[in-house]
């Protein structure tokens, strides 16, 4: 028995070493860089200087909140419709939904930009219809649209999965007990798919708040989201310490909101049962 547990201990040890070296240590380095200055002495200056980025934080949270909400509003009915389709159609719809998730985000964002550009297909079509010339690129709407377009499948997929797992007998029982369609929707289906909604929301919110490619291309660099700011500190100016401080704060914010959401989903299931 002794020998066995030694083998078992040894089995996990490469992973333990690996995760200490490449998961834990990097985070400590972020902390270290955020807490030191150029000369390596301890300081709170980096964190204090973040107040000048408060607008960036507010704007990023705002944009990603709106994008997440719209994704939910569009995606929930879509997942519902998909789950009601015939088994055959469902397979095709699933492939259609997954395909964009597998195509590089860079390609999808860039192609959306090409489509929306002044003089691109959409705007020339609108001009031909007699509309005034519109500028999409470089507006907040374009950034939010980019987030919705890029991350919508990530909202739909988990909701769809939890809908297909949903026991149809609950819905039938509700109908038998005289619940109309809309009431069934909100009293039975929505509460039962809360876990799907939660994971959909996380899967849209987290990449939205940390994106930089979308705001670079669709926002024309005029909207500086948290991701842009971090990217600039590391790739354009050599201010690693500020960049590390911003990353640290963003990480903590996201972990807190994930924890809150998990609390929500714990309660979600026992509402009906």
């Amino acid at each position, binding site marked *: 028995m002794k020998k066995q547990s030694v083998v078992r201990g040894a089995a996990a040890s490469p992973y333990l070493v690996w995760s200490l070296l490449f998961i834990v240590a990097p985070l400590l380095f972020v902390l270290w860089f955020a807490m030191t200055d150029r000369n390596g002495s301890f300081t709170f200056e980096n964190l204090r200087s973040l107040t000048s980025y408060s607008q960036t934080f507010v704007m990023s949270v705002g944009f990603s909140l709106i994008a997440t909400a719209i994704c939910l509003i569009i995606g929930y009915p879509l997942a519902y419709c998909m789950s009601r389709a015939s088994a055959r159609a469902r397979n095709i719809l699933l492939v259609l939904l997954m395909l964009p998730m597998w195509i590089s985000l*860079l390609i999808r964002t860039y192609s959306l930009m090409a489509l929306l550009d002044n003089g691109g297909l959409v705007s020339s079509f609108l001009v031909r219809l007699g509309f005034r010339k519109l500028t999409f690129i470089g507006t907040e709407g374009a950034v939010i649209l980019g987030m919705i377009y890029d991350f919508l499948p990530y909202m739909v997929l988990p909701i769809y999965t939890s809908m297909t797992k949903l026991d149809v007998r609950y819905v039938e029982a509700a109908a038998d007990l005289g619940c109309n369609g809309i009431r069934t929707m909100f009293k039975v289906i929505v509460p039962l798919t809360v876990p799907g909604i939660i994971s959909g929301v996380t899967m849209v919110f987290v990449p939205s708040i940390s994106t930089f490619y979308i705001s670079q291309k669709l926002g024309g660099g005029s909207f500086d989201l948290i991701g842009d700011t971090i990217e600039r500190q590391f790739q354009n100016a050599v201010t690693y310490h500020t*960049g590390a401080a911003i990353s640290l704060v963003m990480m903590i914010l996201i972990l807190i909101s994930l924890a809150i959401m998990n609390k929500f989903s714990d309660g979600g299931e026992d509402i009906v049962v």
Partner: protein
Amino acid sequence: MKILSKTYMALIFLILYAPILVVILFSFNRSGSLSHFAGFSGKWYGELFRDGEALTALKNSLILAVVSSLAATILGTLAAYGIDRAKRKWMARAMESVSNIPMMNPDIVTGVSMMLLFVGVANVLRREPFLGVWTMIIAHTTFNLPYVILSVLPKFRQMDKSLTEAALDLGCPPVKTFFRVELPYLVPGIVSGLMMSFTLSLDDFVISHFVSSPDFRTLPLYIYNQTAHEVKFSMYALCTLMIFVILGLLIAVNLAGSMGERRQRRKAGGK
């Protein structure tokens, strides 16, 4: 109601696909324009295959994906084994939560933290930083690990422990038991973990953006670099090819899945 839901789905999928379809269509455009179509031509594809940089990037991407997904699968399977059998429960829980960190963190934080690690270590050693192939392999293996663990660990948990115990009681050494008894049961989980990390690694841009050097540029980095400068139209050809390869893979996987199901059903019916 039926019609309403069908129109809704059609509309959303149309919007979702419009930009992609435009890219595919205009990759065959004779002129270098994205707004008016001057007739079909395959010249951008010819241009693409003459572009050594794109081909090197493709090769790099594939090498990186294979190496890092294999490494992550081996490490991750061992880790799942360790987590499943850990004597102390807190140990297992700690290991699991650590492995979840790269999955919960935004990619940009993972990328930045990796870069700081490499740069910081180089500073401490008073050496020039060494971003390149190795840092890319390390980073990709690290972000693939949780996905492997996530797909292998449930298999360990579902596994009938008495089989292992029987083998051990019959005098089979633990290592042999693992390969003879446990591994065959885990294969589906391992394969899906491998597939997952392979595609994730092929697709990753953000983390690579921070830990790469021009020595070793993958396909997403090549595309990023293209879109940051003057976009050559051969890039649209490249995107089109990538889309079709992915579509082909998805359809193959799906067909295989439904064929397998049907065969199983037939077997069950036969019995």
